[in-house]
């Protein structure tokens, strides 16, 4: 898994390397770290997809009325998101 992810990372990095212009915000005083930035684009795709799936799963559970008392109390981001959309 690690090797595949890293290869994907390299491919994406090379693709982006041709796009010279990067509109950094005027207030961005932190150096985000180049590797960290490239890595984040890949990770965000993976966890973003997971987040969407989690959101829909919460909606399905809510639809069938199987929301437990505890999960309602905790009110995770995914659940709030499901609430916003339904």
């Amino acid at each position, binding site marked *: 898994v690690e090797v595949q*992810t*890293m290869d994907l990372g390299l491919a994406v990095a090379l693709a982006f390397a041709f796009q010279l212009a990067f509109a950094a915000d005027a207030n961005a005083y932190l150096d985000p*770290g180049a590797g960290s*930035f490239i*890595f984040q*684009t890949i990770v965000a795709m993976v966890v973003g997809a997971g987040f969407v799936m989690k959101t829909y799963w919460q909606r399905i559970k809510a639809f069938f009325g199987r929301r437990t008392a505890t999960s309602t109390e905790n009110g995770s*981001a995914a659940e709030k998101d499901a609430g916003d959309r339904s």
Partner: protein
Amino acid sequence: VTAAEAVAGSFRDPSGFLFTKNGTLYRQVNERYRQSWDALHESGLYLELVGDGLLIPHAEVSTELAPRPGAHRVIRPEPIHFISYPYEWCFSQLQDAALATLRIQERALERNLILKDASAYNIQFRDGRPLLIDTLSFEPYVEGTPWVAYRQFCQHFLAPLALMACRDVRLGQLLRVYIDGVPLDLASRLLPLRTRLRFGLLTHIHLHASSQTRHADVGARGTGAPAAHVSRTGLRGLIDSLQSSVRKLSWQAGGTEWGDYYDDTNYSAPGADHKAEVVRKLVGLATPATVWDLGGNTGVFSRLAVEAGSHVVSWDVDPAAVEKNYRHLREEGPRPLLPLLLDLTNPSAGIGWANEERMSLADRGPVDLVMALALVHHLAISNNVPLPRIAAFLASLSPQLLIEFVPKQDSQVQRLLATRADIFDDYTQAGFEAAFGQHYETLEAHPIRESVRTLYLFRRKRT
């Protein structure tokens, strides 16, 4: 009227800086930060976060107070009673600070703003709860941009938490060495192999670290900063993933030396009651607004000072004791108590740029009263610090001292002497009184019932 003085640790972010004038802390907000500042307020985020206790409230004052040109605003933030640092926090304090940061990020995103930094030093504890003290941490969210502070969050929070939970709680002290958080390659090398089986740690620490190594030469290629695209959903997924990675980490207090000290004391029940009664009485006489309880253990006596109306920092060298103290505080609800980790034989030093970005212990004093209960034998016998040096150091911290003398006959001292030669000829009650008499006059002295110990209330002599 004195001149404004810039706060030494406030220089990295060009958005503004902290300064003090006539003993009051202010923050200058620079013109270049105008758009973000206005967005923070107009979006309603400022009021929401302040209302939920996640952001420090402030009052706007005249920009005439600005010590440097280019001020958009000058604000007076609500004062924080004691500034503490992540290397002084127990596991759960660092974890709660991490979760507060992510909650703020989540709320900000809902209102189209984003945290532009995620430094653990931007979080402080007020009445036992973490809150963000840097009002200049926000900027408008631009759709499609990544989170610029992702790496900083991992270095300041996730890496030390993972090391503390999965390897050894003492590794939290790496934050003393690495002022911008634990480098991810180091964290990755130190973490046990099994952490690679946990998605969150595999991703945000191990793979993140190897990606940094792999792309270390991007700058050298001269292509500028890499363009990176992260969707809003991706960003929310990232926050959600970091939240669950942080939440899944846990550390159980136990196995450290003095964590169960109160179950293993040499006080009889009447002795313990009498000690509490005397402490209460002497704190009442001292009427301190601020107290440092050195060797505070799980905070039993610190709480007596809190009840008397003081703001108390409860210091201990044992991470388990600080952890128990903090967990207890969380259950009790908000009160002016702050449990912190400190090795008094090597107290927090001034660190960072010019050794003045993060203050030393002494720089954050003086306080009105220092309490040192059941402590002097640890300093004098376990650490070979002569009594006159202990007295001189404590006298530099506060004008009043509530201290317990524990003589050699005491079972706890006998325990310390059991494995070593007794080279402590001056460690006697008379030697103690002589050493402390150099700096203090005695206001009260109370032998504790059914014990060989004595409680003193000292007042520093005028020099």
